[in-house]
């Protein structure tokens, strides 16, 4: 299976050869797979060093000189470690950048908590000019890059390691709009990133026990498609959110804000609370974090059992 990171490297060849303003800086990661870009775009690729804050600082200077910078490295190092640079150099100074991270959540599942990150989406969302995206399939990434890379904004792309398995057409991916993946009546499952895979599997299982689950998917967290959430939850009255983000300020928060005024709403959140200690496969850490098909089924059933009186009451 082709990783999202490889697809990013492939996309950069296309983007870099079509726009001479595009420059890529990396913090000693993806160096090998970006060599086709480096060869296709001589003088516009820099493996700048293991110094993420300075790399982000420098990207601001690049943009002041007319360059469209792409900065790429591991999620916690370029978001949490370099956040003051992102905030001041691009937020305060109103400059433009494309920040592309890998290893969000616990994709580096065998490397421990130093390489995990759950707050990145929240951090970027505090910036008025940020566009916050979680492409989790090739068509999403391709569409997002084309739609945003030269928009003069702070574009953040959190690349998942592997795609979620749902085949979208590039044409149906519009930055800022969610996608209704499955129509349902009893409960809304809202998700983002690679957890769409578990959401689809859980909806299949729920259907077998007579529960009709609607799945709405958010590849963009800012701007957030509040309308899609409101429309769905207005019908189902029940919401389960599934996200590889901090439980304090992510998809659940956005959805609940979108549901203000919906009477009788019941909701459950599946998210990350603090560190996930230990090592293993991605799937094993999903289980540790309670981000599984079984967890979604359990959450949905807990909301639907004995609550038939609420459905459609609004």
């Amino acid at each position, binding site marked *: 299976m082709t990783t999202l990171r490889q697809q990013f490297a492939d996309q950069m060849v296309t983007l870099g050869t079509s726009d001479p303003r595009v*420059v890529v800086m990396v913090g000693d990661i993806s160096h090998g797979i970006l060599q086709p870009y480096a060869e296709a775009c001589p*003088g*516009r690729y*820099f493996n*700048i*060093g293991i*110094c993420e*804050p*300075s790399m982000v*600082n*420098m*990207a*601001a*200077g*690049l*943009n*002041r*000189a*007319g*360059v469209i910078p792409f900065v790429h490295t591991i999620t916690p190092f370029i978001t949490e470690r370099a956040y*003051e*640079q992102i905030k*001041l*150099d691009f937020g*305060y*100074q*109103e400059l433009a950048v494309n920040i592309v991270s890998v290893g969000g959540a616990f994709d580096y599942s065998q490397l421990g908590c130093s390489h995990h990150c759950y707050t990145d989406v929240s951090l970027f969302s505090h910036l008025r000019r940020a566009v916050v995206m979680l492409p989790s399939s090739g068509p999403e990434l391709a569409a997002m890059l084309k739609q945003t890379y030269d928009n003069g904004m702070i574009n953040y792309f959190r690349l998942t390691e592997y795609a979620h398995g749902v085949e979208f057409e590039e044409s149906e991916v519009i930055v800022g709009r969610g996608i209704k993946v499955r129509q349902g009546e009893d409960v809304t499952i809202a998700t983002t990133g690679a957890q769409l895979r578990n959401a689809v599997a859980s909806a299949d299982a729920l259907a077998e026990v007579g529960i009709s689950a609607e799945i709405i998917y958010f590849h963009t967290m800012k701007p957030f498609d509040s309308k899609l959430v409101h429309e769905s939850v207005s019908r189902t009255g029940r919401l389960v959110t599934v996200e590889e983000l901090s439980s304090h300020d992510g998809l659940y928060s956005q959805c609940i804000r979108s549901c203000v005024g919906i009477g009788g709403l019941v909701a459950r959140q599946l998210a990350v609370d603090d560190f996930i200690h230990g090592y293993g496969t991605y799937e094993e850490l999903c289980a540790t974090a309670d981000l599984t098909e079984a967890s979604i089924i359990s959450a949905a059933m807990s909301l639907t059992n004995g609550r038939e009186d609420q459905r459609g009451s609004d």
Partner: protein
Amino acid sequence: MINSDLRLTIAEIVQRSGEGHIPSSFSIVDIVEHLYGEVLRYDAANPAWDDRDYFVLSKGHGCAALYVVLRKYGFLTDQDLLDYGTSKGILGGHPDLTVVPGVEASTGSLGHGFPTALGLALGLRIMGKPNRVFALLGDGECQEGTIWESANIGANQQLGNFCAIVDWNGSASQLMPIDDLPAKWSAFGWSVTEVDGHSADELDRVFGALSMQPEGVPTAIIAHTTKGKGVSFTEGHGKWHHRIPDEAEMAALKAELTS
């Protein structure tokens, strides 16, 4: 002493507004004035002129010095200075590039301006432009990790179109007594020159000898300066770092600067 008039204006705007760093500004004002008077290419009527040299004040808290120099050379007005530190104006205790003509980076958090300026130099080279980039750092600021991360990058990327000027007024040695800045910058691969940062002749000699090319060894000019230079009681590292003069102190300050 040179630039007594600019020092007096710095003290006046700080006293009027009740905000500012007088000694840090007195430490660098001779260097900043020399840059705008003798070194930098710019068009004050068109601050975004494509062919300009870039100056980034990385030690943003010294910005009162930058403001009075920008006024002297036509970027700002007298009214801008009168409105310093107020909601009516565009000038404050750290410079904001989004509103101040001639300011090339919004600095204040130490350790940001220098790497941003290096990025400018790299970007200009990528875009095939011959513009030069200058950044003025504090010696205290050189305790920030990003300074040395970026010093490594500047040397490795051979940013010969870049000149760092370090205001070596001794602030750093209060905390970290091992304070051999010229040796440190040399060790990081920069071409190092030392200068008396308060001598017009010395500044002319050092900046006049600069030869900056898009590719080559970047330059670090280590400027020996005195914090609070020009007024006996503001010199040194005591209470004056962020002190606002009262009326009596202002009168004494004015007397020294106009004598």
